[in-house]
C-alpha cells in the first residue's frame, strides 16, 4: 500500500500525539495517593470505595466511601481537569465514617479514595469507572 508523504507525516504525527497526550493529561493514581499521604504507604485494607463499573452519565455518578475509624476521607478523580472531588472530615458525632454522594467525571478514569486514620496511617482504594458518550449526542 503506497502512502503519500502527507499521509505518512499525518499518521506519525498522530501517533506521536497519541503517546504524549495520555501521559500529560492523566495524573497517575499512585502519585495522587502520595500527594495525600505525603509519600507514606497507604494500606489497601480498611477502606471501601463503591462506584459503578460503567457510569450511565458522567454528570451524575453515585459513589460511596467507607473507612471505619477514619478521621477523614479524600476522594479524587484522576482524569478530571482538577483531581480534587471532596474531603469528608468526620466529627465525634458521626455514627460511621462513611459517606455517599454523586460526582462528575469527565471521562473514563480512576476514582480514588484515601482515608486518614486516627493514628496517622493511611488506607487507599481506587476503581476505574468507564464514562461513556451516549446516543445521538442529545
Amino acid at each position: 500500500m503506497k502512502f503519500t508523504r502527507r499521509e505518512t507525516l499525518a499518521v506519525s504525527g498522530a501517533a506521536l500525539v497519541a503517546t504524549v497526550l495520555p501521559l500529560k493529561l492523566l495524573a497517575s493514581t499512585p502519585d495522587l495517593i502520595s500527594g495525600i499521604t505525603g509519600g507514606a504507604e497507604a494500606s489497601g485494607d480498611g477502606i471501601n470505595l463503591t462506584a459503578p463499573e460503567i457510569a450511565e452519565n458522567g454528570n451524575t455518578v453515585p459513589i460511596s466511601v467507607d473507612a471505619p475509624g477514619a478521621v477523614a476521607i479524600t476522594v479524587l478523580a484522576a482524569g478530571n481537569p482538577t483531581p480534587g472531588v471532596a474531603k469528608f472530615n468526620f466529627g465525634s458525632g458521626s455514627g460511621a465514617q462513611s459517606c455517599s454522594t454523586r460526582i462528575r467525571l469527565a471521562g473514563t478514569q480512576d476514582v480514588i479514595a484515601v482515608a486518614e486514620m486516627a493514628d496517622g496511617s493511611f488506607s487507599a482504594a481506587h476503581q476505574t469507572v468507564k464514562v461513556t458518550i451516549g446516543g445521538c449526542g442529545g
Partner: protein
Amino acid sequence: MAKGVKPRVKVPKTAAAGETITIKTLISHKMETGRRKDGDGNVIPRSIINRFTCAFNGNSIVDVNMEPAISVNPYFQFEATVPEAGEFTFTWYDDDGSVYEKKKSIKIA
C-alpha cells in the same frame, strides 16, 4: 444569594438513645464549575457550594470540603449517632458568600 437554592434533608423523627441513624441531604444548586463558556466564548465563572457541615447539639458529625466535581444538586448520605434528643443543624456554604441552613429536631423514642 444564588437563585433557587433550596435544601432538603431526611432525618428520622425519633431514635433510641445511642442509635446510629442514616441522614440524607440534598440542596438544589447549579454548581457552576468555572469550566463552561457562554455563547460569546467567555468563561462562566465558578460558583459552587464549597462546604457542607452537619452538627448535632453543637457536635460535629461531618464537615465536607467540596470541589466542582460534586454533581449539580449536591447530595450526601451519612450516619450519625444520636446520644440524646436534640437538633441537627445542616449548613451549606456558597462561593458567593451565602450560607444556607436547615435544622431538624429528633426525639428519643
